[in-house]
């Protein structure tokens, strides 16, 4: 088997190819696309969206879905901003507080799913409402403005060239998640439970504990995303997270994740996020009619998923 054929069987090859083609195509039509500032804007979007996608990906890995990703991220975001404005907590303490809230919300999802035996779809639908309700109860739909200068600076700071500091936590999380899923027992347990929870249980894996851990990780990742959005926006908007749901599923699916569980790819999901970000930006660059943006975005995502499926089919000889 040639190297190219072997590469083409990986989950990330298709999205990488699509990303390169999209970049070349858009750059040929819009000279500004690869300007330093535009790359920075693109990386800022990717920094947050990748965490949102990972938050869903880890749940897809156990064969479930988490509808409350955005609600957890939003609650963590306003907790972070509110703790600094109302209680005057320093940013590191507020960050810890927000991450613990995310972790707790995620763990609560997992515990409820295990205790009740009700599907994750129903449980997270209910907790979405609860978490969002708490968010609105706290904020009364009003933003928190008292974000310290240090946090604001972090949100707009550049590490080197067009690479923003906001991308650093995301890259760290990407590496940790990749390592966890490929090398650590807990990552293998998550994939095993997603692949066949009955078989995983018979193999000695604690299915209940694994589900709770996966949901706790999901909540933590959503909380990190929420905190990054606060740093980026420089305000604690109560509506943070409201638009995360479609993206959270689109990127892992473009990255070849199997919704039934047991198979996800951190790298391919990251590239899925890149593709969605490029598509979103292209729609703006090419002045697509605002009433058609959602339609075009949906069609392009569908095309990206379809191409990846075709690529996977061709690489495995249609098996």
């Amino acid at each position, binding site marked *: 088997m040639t190297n190219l054929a072997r590469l083409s069987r990986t989950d990330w090859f298709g999205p990488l190819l699509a990303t390169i083609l999209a970049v070349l195509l858009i750059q040929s039509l819009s000279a500004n696309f690869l300007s330093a500032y535009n790359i920075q*804007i693109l990386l800022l979007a990717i920094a947050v969206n990748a965490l949102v996608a990972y938050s869903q990906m880890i749940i897809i890995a156990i064969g479930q879905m988490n509808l409350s990703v955005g609600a957890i991220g939003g609650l963590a975001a306003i907790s972070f901003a509110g703790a600094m404005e109302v209680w005057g907590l320093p940013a590191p303490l507020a960050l810890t507080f927000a991450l613990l809230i995310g972790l707790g919300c995620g763990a609560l999802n997992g515990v409820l799913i295990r205790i009740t035996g009700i599907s994750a779809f129903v449980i997270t639908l209910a907790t979405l409402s609860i978490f969002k309700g708490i968010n609105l109860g706290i904020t009364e739909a009003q933003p928190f*403005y008292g974000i310290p200068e240090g946090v604001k600076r972090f949100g707009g700071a550049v590490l080197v060239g067009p690479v923003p500091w906001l991308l650093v936590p995301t890259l760290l999380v990407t590496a940790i998640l990749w390592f966890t899923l490929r090398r650590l027992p807990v990552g293998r347990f998550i994939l095993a439970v997603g692949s066949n929870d009955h078989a995983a249980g018979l193999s000695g894996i604690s299915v209940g504990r694994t589900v709770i851990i996966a949901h706790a990780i999901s909540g933590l990742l959503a909380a990190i995303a929420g905190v990054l959005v606060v740093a980026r926006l420089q*305000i604690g908007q109560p509506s943070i997270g409201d638009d995360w749901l479609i993206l959270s599923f689109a990127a892992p699916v473009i990255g070849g994740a199997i919704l039934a569980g047991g198979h996800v790819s951190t790298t391919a999901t990251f590239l899925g996020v890149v593709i969605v970000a490029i598509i979103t*930006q292209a729609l*703006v660059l090419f002045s697509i009619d*605002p009433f058609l*943006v959602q339609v075009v975005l949906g069609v392009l995502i569908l095309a990206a998923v379809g191409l990846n499926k075709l690529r996977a089919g061709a690489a495995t000889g249609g098996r």
Partner: protein
Amino acid sequence: MTTIFRTMGLAALMGGAAATAALAADDSKLALVPGGPHPYFAAWEPAGADAAQEFGLAGSDYKVPQRWELAQQNQLLESLLSQGYNGFMIFPGDPVGAVATAEELAEFGAPVIAGGGCYKDPSPAAFCLGTDTGNSAYLGTKELLAAMGDGEKRIAHFTGFLVDPNTQLRIDAVNRAAEEAGATVVQVIADIDAPEPAEEKINAYLAAHAGDVDGIVTTAWVPAVVAANALRRMGDTGIHMVGIDHDEVVLAAIKEGIIDGTMIQNPYGQGYIGSFALARMRSGCTVKEDAPFGSNALTDKFIDSGTAYVDASNVDGYLDTMREETARILADFEATYLSCP
């Protein structure tokens, strides 16, 4: 912020003393229901509370659907009806789709008015009390064009949810103002009245097209905040901007000279006057057939709650402007629009 709006209410009350001479029925339990969570509507809460206290109502409560979805709003309204609420000011989640639920409320004898945005006629809403959004967008664009001075005038328009009945009115108004001045609207970015899409799309647009734009007009809250922040980050771009509403970020950007101005609306006045009107209708008043309503693309029963342009010269006193507007409308509201026994 609440204190500020309460101050406005007290002033409005003083201005409208004559109108409040006849107290409303004290069993009025009113609900002020926006289309979803949004900072614009936050002023409805103190407005309702102040109105309830000043007019002796059983309550005038601000109730927010959890999401910007018509189904969520409908469920909330039906729930409120079953809880004993007997008068409703509603920002319709959809100008046509929301009519059915409004009819349901009216069938139970609860007066309904539209606040902030209008139902499409015919509807059971007695009238629509809101910003003349088209006019506000038109005036804002005119102010932007004036600030841009002579030379080429290329405008980018950042606006709100496409399901918002006001969005199309705003797009049309900005286009009309630009056309009249020989300017070009080079880009309309809509559906960005939420933080992440606004941040992503506005910044992406400015990154690629900052050199192709001479002015920005925003006609929704979040895009105004995000665009003001983007211009602050970009430094001296030469791009002029007129925003909308009174977010602290926007007001600070005006004071710092980053943007030219903003079109202020009057959500407190909507909540306060709307509560008064609902209570009067519950006590037997009816809407005059020959009331001097305005009209827009959705309804012929429109009452303008006021709008004003604020720039660096009057940004510190913008509350006075809206306070005066609320008092002016309330002072002769009953005589102008209602027929009471």
